[in-house]
């Protein structure tokens, strides 16, 4: 096909001939085989060692914050799915919790239990994905295929629940719209029973593997001061010596009723982060066992409410909408006009698998938020590469980007 005439000139910025100091500028372009999305890293290299690193983001900026100023709160829910698209229920949940705190809603217990189940399943999905892609980047393709197999089982479970594999929108403001179906608990139990031996498979392949250790230990060490200064959170912060997990420190949902440990390390290198992710998978399985029991207790106690009862903000259950006239009228107004939360501001942070996911909502009483700021952990985890990469070699770049667990839907929003 003949070339369509265009104005793009060839790029030669990776080879500059007029430098005397032997420095090479390498462009780790917006498309690269590492599975992490659209990161453009401009690296200044001295032989093979990095002297300066400049990450360039914004290649997935879709204008979500501006969309929020033009959409009603419920309409914005599926958009939050696309932020951290690997564990999408955690974004949904963060947004729903922020709006509920703004309004002052109390979510019924059964909905809380179901939400916790979804959150921990999403955490498992996210950590499995992280393991698969990091191992793939370093070269361990077996782990990629194994972890994706486990992930497929989890996606089957979620697909049976809400119909979507990847972008769930399963959590609404005020609760959850759907109750879990019969096979959900059974499939989840079967999966959880097999999970410890699967994690052990991955650890057997990787933990004492000489290549893995050489690429992960002492590489990408983040000191505690750097982590605090850069606003790191989640496993990045816990690997650098600060035992801070929002599920324990500012418990939301029913996290204060379940027992789990929070792994942390003081080494701060890639290997520490890797170990924390593996341990967190085990902790999530522990939480899920307890949450399944809590759900069964809810069923025994006959608590069936799934959405909060707040007629000014939340629609009635479908049965009422179809049979009662006032519920239908109120649902119509809420869907066309949107709920109007009180005037005020709220910042709510939850512990997403990547770190502290925060939603800042400034509402002026209208159906659209006046300002919605999405605080995504991966934004600052990408920024820390500026300070972290100098001194490392090119192969370390790949392993460091892998273990920082960056998702570009979050970074650019």
């Amino acid at each position: 096909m003949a070339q369509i005439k265009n104005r793009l000139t060839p790029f030669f910025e990776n080879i500059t001939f007029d430098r005397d100091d032997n420095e090479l500028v390498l462009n780790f372009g917006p498309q690269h085989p590492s599975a992490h999305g659209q990161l453009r890293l401009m690296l200044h290299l001295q032989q093979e060692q990095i002297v300066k690193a400049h990450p360039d983001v914004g290649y997935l900026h879709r204008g979500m914050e501006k969309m929020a100023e033009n959409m009603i709160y419920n309409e914005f829910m599926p958009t939050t799915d696309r932020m951290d698209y690997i564990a999408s229920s955690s974004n949904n949940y963060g947004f729903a919790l922020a709006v509920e705190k703004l309004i002052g809603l109390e979510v019924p217990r059964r909905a809380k239990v179901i939400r916790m189940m979804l959150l921990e399943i999403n955490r498992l999905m996210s950590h499995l994905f992280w393991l698969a892609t990091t191992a793939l980047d370093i070269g361990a393709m077996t782990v990629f295929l194994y972890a994706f197999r486990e992930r497929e089982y989890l996606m089957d479970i979620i697909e049976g629940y809400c119909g979507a594999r990847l972008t769930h929108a399963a959590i609404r403001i005020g609760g959850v719209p759907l109750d879990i179906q019969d096979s959900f608990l059974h499939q989840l139990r079967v999966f959880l029973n097999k999970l410890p031996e699967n994690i052990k498979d991955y650890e057997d392949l990787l933990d004492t593997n000489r290549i893995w250790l050489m690429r992960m230990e002492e590489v990408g060490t983040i000191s505690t001061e750097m982590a605090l200064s850069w606003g790191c959170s989640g496993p990045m912060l816990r690997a650098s010596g600060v035992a801070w997990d929002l599920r324990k420190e500012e418990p939301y949902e029913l996290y204060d009723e379940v027992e789990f440990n929070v792994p942390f390390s003081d080494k701060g290198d890639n290997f520490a982060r890797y170990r924390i992710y593996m341990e967190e998978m085990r902790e999530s399985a522990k939480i899920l066992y307890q949450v399944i029991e809590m759900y069964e207790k809810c069923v025994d106690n006959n608590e069936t409410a799934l959405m909060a009862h707040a007629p000014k903000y939340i629609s009635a259950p479908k049965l009422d909408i179809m049979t009662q006239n006032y519920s239908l009228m109120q649902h119509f107004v809420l869907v066309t006009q949107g709920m109007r939360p009180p005037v005020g501001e709220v910042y709510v942070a939850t512990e997403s698998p990547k770190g502290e996911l925060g939603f800042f909502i400034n509402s002026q009483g209208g159906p659209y938020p006046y300002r919605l700021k999405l605080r995504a952990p991966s934004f600052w985890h990408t920024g820390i590469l500026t300070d972290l990469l100098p001194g490392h070699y090119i192969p370390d770049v790949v392993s460091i980007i892998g273990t920082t667990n960056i998702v570009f839907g979050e970074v650019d929003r």
Partner: protein
Amino acid sequence: MRAYTPKDDVQAKAYYTDRFYVAPQVPKQDVADDAVFAADLEAISAKFEVKESFIQVGQMVVYINANDIYAVLELMRDELEYTQLTEMSAIDWLAKDNTFEIFYQMLSMNKRKRIRIKYFIENGQAVDSVEKLFRSADWSEREMFDMFGIEANNHPFMKRILMPYDWQGNPLLKTYPLEGDEFAAWYEVDKIYGKEARDIIGPELRDTARVDRYDSNRFARLGFEVPKGTEITDDMEKTVQSYQEDGGVFLITKLDKESSKVIDDPQR
């Protein structure tokens, strides 16, 4: 004459607001209710002017002067143990009184408390960068500059971060339309093919309801696909999915739907 639509806030508006509707407020509590916050507020107000302070949804909000921000954050980081700057950004109040409201969300892990520091600046005023105190402000201030046009003094690299470097316009201002102005609409065409290609490629098609089910040249109905140009009536038949051509392909197994097995056990 068409009705005058004010251009200082072109975001979507509610189509109906009750004339006598008074919006409720999220409750604010007095700072004295919480001992930790009261001590923090005292430490801040001993050295700087605090215009307003209250507790809302469990977090303290403090309004200060724009000039004091570097010193206040230094005080908070060094003495009051607020070690993380979780977030900072701006809110656009240009339509109301030509100001921006800048907020800094701080977190103290030892005390398990969050504080929001806020101040107002005029349109065109620049803020002091706190990047020397918290490195996370480096990128946050760049994003604020990109989205609102608010510059930060003493910032190491004050360039756009989310939009391309040669973008014109600050997207999160209320005067900027959601779908972008003319510069945004033609940006990629101009950059790659040049202005001459605007006529060839045509404008962006942003109508979200432009699917026409009777147009078989540009749209296809899933499950009822027809060749281009066929007239669509209301009683079409479902089309059959074929994975390979009729004659089959050399060495490739042809899928036979009758003999295929549906697996319904997910844990197989």
